[in-house]
């Protein structure tokens, strides 16, 4: 909204001319921000840029990236999903309950996914059919799903996640941790969905101009609902990954995930006004936040100063990004 039209034009020019198809100028700005952070930490700490630590960062960022990808779709459609953390928790709890009840693993995984998607469906229906504001619906969901997870477990984590599942999640593929591979594949799929499928266009259209989309015959309600279902499903995926890594499904899982996810999406260029956002950008945003946390821990920055650095770097990353996009 605040963009001058020339910025937009520049962006579009850039998009067509000198950058590969899957990355646009906006993403290049984010990439630049990431590069800067990486360089700073690499200079300050020798361990930071070693291969194992880079994999470590990717692995640590993978959960936030997974959630943030769902968030990106919701944000592009003009909504927001504050309930991702509790949706993850309740999915984890459902999945773990099934697993420990001896249900075959694939069924348990589907059960977890289904639970997350059901949360999303509930959000989506209230938003699309009852016409409630996404922020407030998912704020309600934030309490609701958390409460259900806590009530179901009595507040206790569920242990006893099958070892084969844990081994799978903690394994790697050609040296790349499985969670990173999973989220990478999801991101690829979502990139195609957003940029190459009718549904992707519908999302952009609904977020960009809902009325125009409706008039053009875009199934607005279905589109809006679907993004929340996706977000819920991705929350479940994140929950399963985390469950595999921690060996427990904790009903308190996912506290404040929504903020991290929104931050990753926003750093990656999603506009909370809707109609704008990028899969690549969001991934970069998640990695920026992950690197930040990792770097500060490596340097053993004291708790209060870690908080300080986080705040400063979020703002500085946005400023750099703004500057590289060439606005005075």
């Amino acid at each position, binding site marked *: 909204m605040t963009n001058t039209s020339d910025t937009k034009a520049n962006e579009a020019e850039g998009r067509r001319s000198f950058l590969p198809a899957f990355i646009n100028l906006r993403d290049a700005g984010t990439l630049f921000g990431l590069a800067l952070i990486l360089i700073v930490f690499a200079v300050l700490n020798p361990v930071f840029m070693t291969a194992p630590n880079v994999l470590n960062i990717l692995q640590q960022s993978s959960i936030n990236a997974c959630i943030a990808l769902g968030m990106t779709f919701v944000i592009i459609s003009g909504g927001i999903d504050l309930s991702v953390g509790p949706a993850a928790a309740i999915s984890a709890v459902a999945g773990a309950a099934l697993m420990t009840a001896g249900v075959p693993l694939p069924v348990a995984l589907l059960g977890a996914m289904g639970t997350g998607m059901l949360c999303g469906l509930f959000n989506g229906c209230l938003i699309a059919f009852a016409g409630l504001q996404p922020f407030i619906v998912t704020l309600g969901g934030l309490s609701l799903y958390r409460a259900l997870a806590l009530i179901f477990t009595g507040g206790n984590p569920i242990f006893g996640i099958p070892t084969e599942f844990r081994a799978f999640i903690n394994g790697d593929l050609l040296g790349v941790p499985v969670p990173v591979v999973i989220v990478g594949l999801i991101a690829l799929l979502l990139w195609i969905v957003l940029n190459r499928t009718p549904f992707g266009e519908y999302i952009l259209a609904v977020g*960009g101009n809902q009325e125009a*989309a409706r008039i053009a015959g875009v199934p607005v309600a279905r589109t809006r609902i679907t993004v929340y279902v996706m977000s819920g499903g991705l929350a479940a995926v994140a929950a399963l990954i985390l469950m595999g890594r921690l060996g427990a499904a904790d009903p308190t899982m996912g506290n404040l995930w929504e903020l991290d996810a929104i931050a990753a999406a926003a750093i990656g260029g999603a506009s909370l006004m809707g*109609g704008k956002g990028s899969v690549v950008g969001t991934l970069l945003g998640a990695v920026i936040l992950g690197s930040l946390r990792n770097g500060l821990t490596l340097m053993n920055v004291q708790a209060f100063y870690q908080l300080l650095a986080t705040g400063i770097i979020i703002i500085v990353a946005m400023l750099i990004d703004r500057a590289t996009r060439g606005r005075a």
Partner: protein
Amino acid sequence: MATDINRLAVDGISKGFPGVKALEDVSFQVRPGEVHGLLGENGAGKSTMLNVLAAVLKPDAGGIRIDGETVRPGSPKDARAAGIAMIHQELQHVPGLSVAQNIFLGRPLKMAGGLLVNRRAQETRARSILADLDPSIDPGRPIHELKVAQQQIVEIARALLDDAKIIAMDEPTSSLTPSEFDNLAALIRKLSAQGVSIIYVSHKMDEVFQVCQRATILRDGRFVATVDLTETSEDEVIASMVGREIQAEQHVSHAEAETVLRVEGLGDGRMIRDASFELHKGEVLGLAGLVGSGRTELMRLIAGIDRATEGSIEIRGSEHSFRSPREAISAGIGLVPEERKKDGIVRDRSVASNIALPCMNRFSSAGLIRRAHLRREATELMQQMNLRPPNVDRAIGQFSGGNQQKAIIGRWLAADVDILLFDEPTRGIDIGAKSEIYDLIERLAAQGKSIIVVSSELPEILRLSDRVMVMREGEIAGVLSGCDVDEGRIAALAIPKSKSRSSQRTAEPA
């Protein structure tokens, strides 16, 4: 019932909005292949009618038949499936998407078993549809980069996409130039020859008479008559639209010698180069030029909306360099923007609030807004301008386009600025209101205001202006005054001399 030769029959449609009866028991028929005008003043209910046809709105009563069959489309998509396509008055596109994506929005061409969008096919198809209308539009370009006129053409292209039986066009030419209208007219004839019926809404009578065979006239939401245009005169049509006579006034100059605004070498580093001219007290300066010649940009520079990179603006001898519209306003400059919805109105706020925005101080004392005073003054102002419905407390977004425009003009009258910049002031405005606005401009000039009118309608320029300035490719190509002002000379200045952009100023005509 006699044999139904009608393509479309509208039977007793009524549609009310809270406080307004937008349509009351309206019936009319359209024949196959007919181009049927739908005429009426601002707020007469034309758009509402078309929106009902296209199932964007649900009627309160009445129904429609297509080829004798009753149809009840539940959504715009249903309506399109039933054969009705619509071009909307307000441009309805999605900013981030390309031209082709917008054209195919909601019904993409697919590939890979329906999973993926076939962008290439969409662009090819879009290009072939656009070829008839404006081949310069690149279907791959993001739509928000296009000029309004081009966006409107895209809107038209969208309606042509499916093989509709009926195409409802709501002011399709409101931002098109005459030559673009010619393209459209040719296309309409082609479609009508193929048996497609077209419902054509426009305030431009010459166009209506040129393309339509018959026309239905609405007044205040009621059916007045369906007339055969070959047997009716323009004046008769207008009279039944307006319900009174409209006499064409002649231009009277009120220009004085005093220079109010002096623009010297103004440029924005992109589009506008070296613009220099003067505006006198009480003068109406017409600004003509082709679409994209930079008229809007120049007005925006003067109004402080965009920053100038070079040159100077002098008002009554003192130099200004505006950093915001606010500064320009306090120097006495007000702009009625071209894109009303985007740059003009705050849609959820009342007409009174929209009017008061630039001059809150005038309507407040001791820091508080004097609501009663504001309402009174706004009501008075809007009565003069014949706002319909005459309720300044209603959200401006609920008014018809023409009435919104009146409120925006009213804003600058209330702010009492000395210099008024009108960018396409009568776009989408009915004949009655148009003459009201002309009177108004003249009255303002008589009061000593200085006025620039940007318009793509030459008759409008000729009707209003003391002098005419013509822009071409971002430069001022020349200024015509007195008996030099005629259509031929303006056109000669406006049209670029060669394909390659000449950077040197073209010589003034003799």
